[in-house]
């Protein structure tokens, strides 16, 4: 009988690149000379070991994989087609017990550990899992010609946002899927605008293309889940002529775990997690949902943030509660908040030393957002810098007070913004005269940015009459 095509008897698995395997080469010859039926599987060199009959070329690693070899040398015994015993590395006593032959390798040390099997090599293990381990994918396999440039092939198939993508090979996608415990077949929802089923596997493929690492997957999946929440109105965000794209804000321990940036240049480039998670979400919308510029995406201008816009909050140095906690997530939990927003509008105030002055500067900048006379229940996120936050911290202002003051200061008599006032047609209807009009529906505050710079930032919301709601989802593994 045989196991995986290997006849009953002894089986030794070795590679030349292993000093312990080289050391036991005379022992293998000794076993063969004793007339013991032995098969030797060699992983890296069919000419090794020498002087031993029955060497089996396993450079393709199929048999080593099937025997689940983790270390070489491994000696095992097959009886009636089943493995009965196994010795890992060199240990004279174990080898003698297993073979029934005494005085094996008497010139050798009593024992010596082996080396890693090539099947366990990080560079080959994932490839073997796909080739031999029964890993399958639901997605179509697209064959690229041998002379075809992989990245150009992705451009040619309209899979890119305009920048090169990492070609989504099965091995890369398999590795990406190791970053989550979610079933690759799980459907997260129907992705607008084509309302195609968006599986975890599709998210992983686009994550590969965007340049994500596997450990980013839980954050990206939470972002996709938030985007698919009906309250977020993703279809409208894609289709509108306005500037908007999804802005991803990350809170909780996962920020540090995956090395996100909440400090210097937090809203800019240069951090792999920030850049690739935001980009991956947009690639999912483009590729799975079909939301492409010029197609359903009818943005007049768009914004650079539509390549991807993702950053983390600096919670450690903030005296105010994190955005996620404000949004109902328990402290210490990781969460993703999605905001339908435009680009970055700076608030520069290098002179205010009191909270009363500084909050007025913030309000004055917020009041002109979109248009000085458009007051229609807008949303905005204020990204407050460490130096600006210090002014409020030293004066003992709570976050709620800060937001409340901003709401009050951006509420004006309708007469100021009525249509025609200031010689400008936009504005509230005449019928609103005599009332006070609020600029904002929701104002959220996030702490981020470098420690030097008396600047903050406004992220303008798309809302108004859009009905898109800010959406927060907890990050799950």
């Amino acid at each position: 009988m045989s196991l995986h095509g290997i006849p009953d008897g002894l089986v030794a698995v070795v590679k030349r690149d292993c000093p312990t395997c080289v050391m036991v080469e005379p022992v293998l010859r000794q076993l063969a000379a004793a007339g013991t039926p032995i098969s030797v599987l060699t992983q890296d060199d069919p000419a090794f070991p020498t002087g031993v009959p029955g060497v089996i070329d396993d450079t393709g690693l199929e048999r080593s994989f099937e025997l689940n070899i983790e270390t070489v040398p491994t000696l095992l015994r097959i009886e009636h087609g089943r493995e009965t015993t196994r010795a890992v590395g060199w240990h004279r006593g174990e080898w003698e017990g297993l073979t029934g032959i005494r005085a094996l390798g008497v010139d050798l040390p009593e024992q010596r550990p082996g080396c890693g099997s090539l099947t366990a090599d990080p560079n080959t293990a994932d490839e073997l899992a796909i080739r031999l381990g029964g890993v399958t994918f639901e997605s179509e396999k697209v064959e690229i010609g041998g002379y075809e440039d992989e990245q150009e092939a992705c451009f040619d198939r309209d899979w890119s946002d305009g920048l090169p993508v990492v070609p989504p090979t099965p091995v890369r996608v398999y590795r990406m899927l190791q970053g989550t415990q979610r079933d690759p077949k799980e459907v997260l929802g129907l992705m607008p605008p084509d309302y195609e089923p968006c599986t975890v596997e599709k998210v992983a493929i686009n994550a590969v293309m965007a340049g994500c690492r596997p450990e980013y997957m839980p954050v990206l999946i939470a972002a996709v889940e938030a985007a698919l929440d009906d309250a977020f109105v993703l279809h409208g965000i894609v289709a509108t002529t306005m500037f908007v794209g999804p802005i991803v804000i990350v809170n909780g321990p996962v920020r540090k775990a995956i090395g996100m940036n909440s400090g210097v240049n937090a809203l800019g480039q240069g951090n792999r997690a920030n850049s690739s998670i935001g980009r991956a979400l947009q690639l999912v919308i483009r590729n799975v949902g079909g939301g492409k510029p010029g197609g359903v995406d009818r943005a007049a201008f768009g914004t650079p943030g539509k390549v991807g816009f993702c950053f983390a909050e600096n919670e450690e140095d903030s005296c105010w509660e994190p955005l996620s906690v404000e949004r109902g997530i328990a402290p210490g939990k990781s969460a993703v908040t999605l905001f339908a927003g435009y680009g970055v509008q700076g608030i520069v105030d290098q002179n205010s030393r009191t909270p009363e002055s500084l909050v007025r500067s913030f309000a004055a900048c917020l009041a002109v957002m979109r248009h000085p006379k458009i007051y229609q229940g807008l949303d905005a996120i204020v990204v407050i810098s460490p130096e600006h936050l210090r002014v409020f911290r030293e004066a003992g202002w709570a976050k709620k007070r800060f937001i409340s003051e901003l709401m009050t200061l951006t509420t004006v008599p309708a007469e100021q913004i009525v249509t025609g006032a200031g010689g400008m047609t936009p504005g509230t209807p005449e019928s609103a005269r005599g009332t006070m009009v609020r600029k904002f529906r929701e104002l959220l505050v996030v702490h981020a940015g470098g420690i030097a710079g008396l600047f903050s930032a406004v992220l303008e919301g798309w809302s108004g009459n859009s009905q898109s709601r800010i959406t927060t989802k907890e990050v799950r593994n």
Partner: protein
Amino acid sequence: MTTLLNPTGEHETAKRVQAQRPIALDGLTVGVLDIGKPRGDVFVNRVAERLAERGIAVKRYAKPSPNAPAIIATRQKMLAETQVAVIGLAD
């Protein structure tokens, strides 16, 4: 040869047969949907008036926002109550 996994929704375009156009509107009810775009109501109101002047039954519907698809209840109501629909498609 390299294998890549398809990142798209892999959808096949659904082929829908266009509904047969009525030869006349006599006896039919026309649904007029205001999608919520600013001043869109001016257009659909005028269409409704002109139809009513011709003695055609008109029913009015509205979406809460131009940015999201019409809610299912609205779509079902239109399907049940009308045979013809006039819908604007934003800008």
